């Protein structure tokens, strides 16, 4: 690590001020950022921990019925507290990393980072969630901009993610054998007005919606509707753990499994 200054404000307003400085960076659970710092791949002047800001933590139900998850809420908390209202989201959180990662890592950190193999982005996109920051509200469809790219401005803080609760949903993750991030993860969510399918781990463009599958499933929510349906391999990632063709194939398999498992 290079040396840096450290602040741990207890209100959002103080955090905003602290992040206004040159080369200041927010620190969530540190599960991505700390390893990056240790490898000396990042060199912030100042780290501003969001860990003491109570107003961005916790899970609650909004007036419109949406599930509201504070940006500083850990995966472990979501796994516990979303279980009754949004079981598919809770199950996703319960399978991120290991207990240590889940007790530190936060939803805000995950979607700010937007790793192309991360789990939450699939849920956020498939749920048509709204990302709330200290400045504005961003619709999921406008938020993810490609691998590690988001609509966030410098210093902008994710304070909350609002998930409309679907009738049925499931996240199916095929694990990359080493990291156990998603080699391919598919989140299927069925709403009264249609089905949304979010796919992570697969594409060179980061998380995406599989619109053909959405159309088929909106017409007929059954595995039969997506049987034999496949994504083309172009644009899929290819690495040590799977070719583009394999990933494209898994998108179909995981989508069918998510439909079958949706509850």
């Amino acid at each position, binding site marked *: *690590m*290079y040396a840096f200054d450290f602040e741990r404000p207890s209100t959002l307003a103080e955090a905003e001020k602290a992040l206004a400085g040159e080369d200041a960076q927010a620190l969530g659970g540190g599960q991505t950022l700390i390893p990056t710092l240790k*490898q*000396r791949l990042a060199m912030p002047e100042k780290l501003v921990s969001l860990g003491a800001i109570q107003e961005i933590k916790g899970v609650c139900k909004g007036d419109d019925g949406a599930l509201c998850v504070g940006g500083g809420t850990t995966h472990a908390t979501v796994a516990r507290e979303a279980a009754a209202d949004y079981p598919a989201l809770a199950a996703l959180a319960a399978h991120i990393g290991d207990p240590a990662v889940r007790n530190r890592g936060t939803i805000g950190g995950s979607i700010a980072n937007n790793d192309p193999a991360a789990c939450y982005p699939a849920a956020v996109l498939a749920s048509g969630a709204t990302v709330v920051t200290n400045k504005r509200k961003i619709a999921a469809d406008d938020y993810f901009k490609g691998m590690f790219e988001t609509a966030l401005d410098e210093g902008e803080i994710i304070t909350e993610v609002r998930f409309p609760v679907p009738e049925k949903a499931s996240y199916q993750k*095929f694990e990359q*054998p*080493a*990291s156990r991030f998603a*080699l391919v993860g598919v989140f299927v969510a069925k709403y009264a007005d249609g089905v949304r399918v979010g796919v992570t781990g697969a594409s060179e463009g980061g998380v995406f919606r599989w619109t053909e599958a959405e159309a088929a499933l909106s017409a007929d929510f059954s595995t039969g509707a997506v049987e034999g349906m496949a994504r083309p391999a172009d644009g899929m990632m290819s*690495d*040590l*753990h*799977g*070719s583009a063709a*394999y990933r494209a*194939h*898994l998108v179909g*398999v995981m989508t069918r499994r998510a439909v079958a498992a949706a509850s």
Partner: protein
Amino acid sequence: MPKDHEGIGAGTKRREDVRFLTGAGNYTDDINVHGQAHVHFLRSDVAHGRLKKVDTAAAEGMPGVIRVFTGADFEGVGGLPCGWCVTDRHGQPMQEPAHPVLAQGKVRHVGDPIAAVVAETAEQARDAAEAIEVEIEDLPAVIDMKAALEEGATKVHDDLTSNLCYDWGFVEENREAVDKAIKEAAHVTTLELKNQRLVANPMEPRVAVGDFNRGTGEHTLYTTSQNPHVIRLLMGAFVLGIPEHKLRVVAPDVGGGFGSKIFHYAEEAFCTFAAKAVNRPVKWTSSRSEAFISDAQGRDHVTKIELALDKDNNFTAIRTETYANMGAYLSTFAPSVPTWLHGTLMAGNYKTPNIYVNVKAVFTNTVPVDAYRGAGRPEATYQLERVIDKAARELGVDPIALRRQNFVTEFPYATPVAVEYDTGDYHGTMDVLEKMADLSGFEARRKESEARGKLRGLGLNCYIEACGIAPSQLVGQLGARAGLYESATVRVNATGGIVVMTGSHSHGQGHETTFPQVIADMIGIDADMIEIEHGDTANTPMGMGTYGSRSIAVGGSAMVRAAEKVINKAKKIAAHLMEASEADVELKDGQFSVAGTDKSVAWGDVTLAAYVPHNYPLDEIEPGLEETAFYDPSNFTYPAGAYACEVEVDPETGKVEIKRFAAADDFGNIINPMIVDGQVHGGIGQGIGQALLENCVYDESGQILSASFMDYAMPRADDVPFYDVDHSSQTPCTHNPLGVKGCGEAGAIGSPPAVVNAVIDALHSGGHKVDHIDMPVSPARVWAAMNA
């Protein structure tokens, strides 16, 4: 009786675990010497290049920097030696390149150390290392072994004639007979495969602390080593020119080695050298990332094997051709692994009259490769047991029947590849396996899996290994530059307690528990009266350390010999005390007695007399009770076993799940069955890691693509099943006093072929005519093979 004393055969819990599991261990990184400075190595980030400039001026001015070293500082210093010289097919010694402590002229792999900064803190050293200006002229990276041997290929070492280290033929005189037997065979099965490169990844990364005492001129090196005496000899004699009496090497608690901590590494020599040069203790602690590019790696063989059979399915010949990757330099024992630890095992458990093994060892711009759990024997077993399965399928015969038909049944058995198996009962071991694994119930389990949409497969494997390395004279003839005996001093204290100082080293094997069990059994006293010391050259006799499953077979035997000397002397003292003839004195349950009388004297009375020799035969024997023995075995030991693995393959994703795993091993006599279970469990887990998960991959430019746990898949608890293990099939070794064979590597040798055979069997059951998938048999590879 044994159970009372926790002697031989007792499943005593490991006493060292109390220390390890409660954070009371003393690992090398726990050692901080007063006044120590820290070193950070600047390592090459390219695989191959000419060093044009290494400018340390800016770094030297950085805060906390004590001194910056480069290759130039080591010009007069020896390079890292290789401990084994292989002679090639034409009688020529292998090509042996220089291996400088810090790179000189060229860098040859990602991770090759270029410079080293010694500073007050590790962070300051790292900061300053970033300020070193390095200019490297990139050279083409030599990665693929076959391409490396082509005419005109870029050379890893400019002063060698090519990238070929050696072209070894074994047994060269058999070559024509083997060719003829293959030509005349009724059936020949051929298989080409890779035994992929692995990273050992012990839980504890390497650490070295060098210390120099200006007052006495003595050097001390604390290091994460499996064999401190070997490091002292190699580093003292070949690298730094320090005589043994001025050099102490301490390997305290060591958190796993798996082979990777056998070798003498540049960082050890550096810390020892620099401690004197800067007159401060110098410490280095490897990060995990550094371990991926600086610890010697394992395996990396590319092999073609042919198995010839006559019309009755008797094996008539085996011919193999292997390319073995040495990496950029020769690590300490690297040349011996694909040759003497591999070719000599190619007979397996079978009586094949004609065998010829050809191995081409190749230099590439990759991290050096050396012994890794099993070392050569897993590579031999894997190819043989895979090709036998393929032959059974081609011939439409049962794979177990084919194996049984060709088993060696008479012992001793001299193989055509130079070794003589002393004992074994391969049919007996297979009988144990068939029952334990419930093979007769397999078809029903397969149907049940199919009903759930899964393909189930059964994979078999038999292995033989040569352990307890080894007779010194023999290995000397084969090119070893060291003897391979073991040593022990048994020191009995006045009140009867015992300290055994062994040349073996324990880094997870449980010696502190098993070794006392042997002594407890011999004397008939409680095991907790016996303590084991190991790992410090200052207080243990010269020993060769722990690898090749040699500790109990060779180190344990040395201890038995020393204990026998102690007991013989104690009997003399007891005879004197009881006024009896020495020949009539018996030792049982810690009591000396005279046959046919009621005279007896306790162990403690005799030991006290040895140190308080008031009433003592001083004119016949010296006071004291301490003996040392060196034991040089007359042969290797030959543990053998039969393994069965059942897998389920998900035909949609290619994911393999291991449902059952049974291991029947013959380790000869067993000292502690619980520890043996643990060694087998760990070995199987490691073998499953190789079979399904682990893979060290370099791209064409020589960058490691799997240089962290994000991409290098280690086996985890949920990747492995509960194992069924059984070692009741016991044919004691005939030539060591304990009748033991060694169990440390068996699991890692026996499991990979069983797993891969099971996957292939599963695919065939689903109608996929797939003959081979290279390890790791990952979901992506299985899916690709099914859809080829």
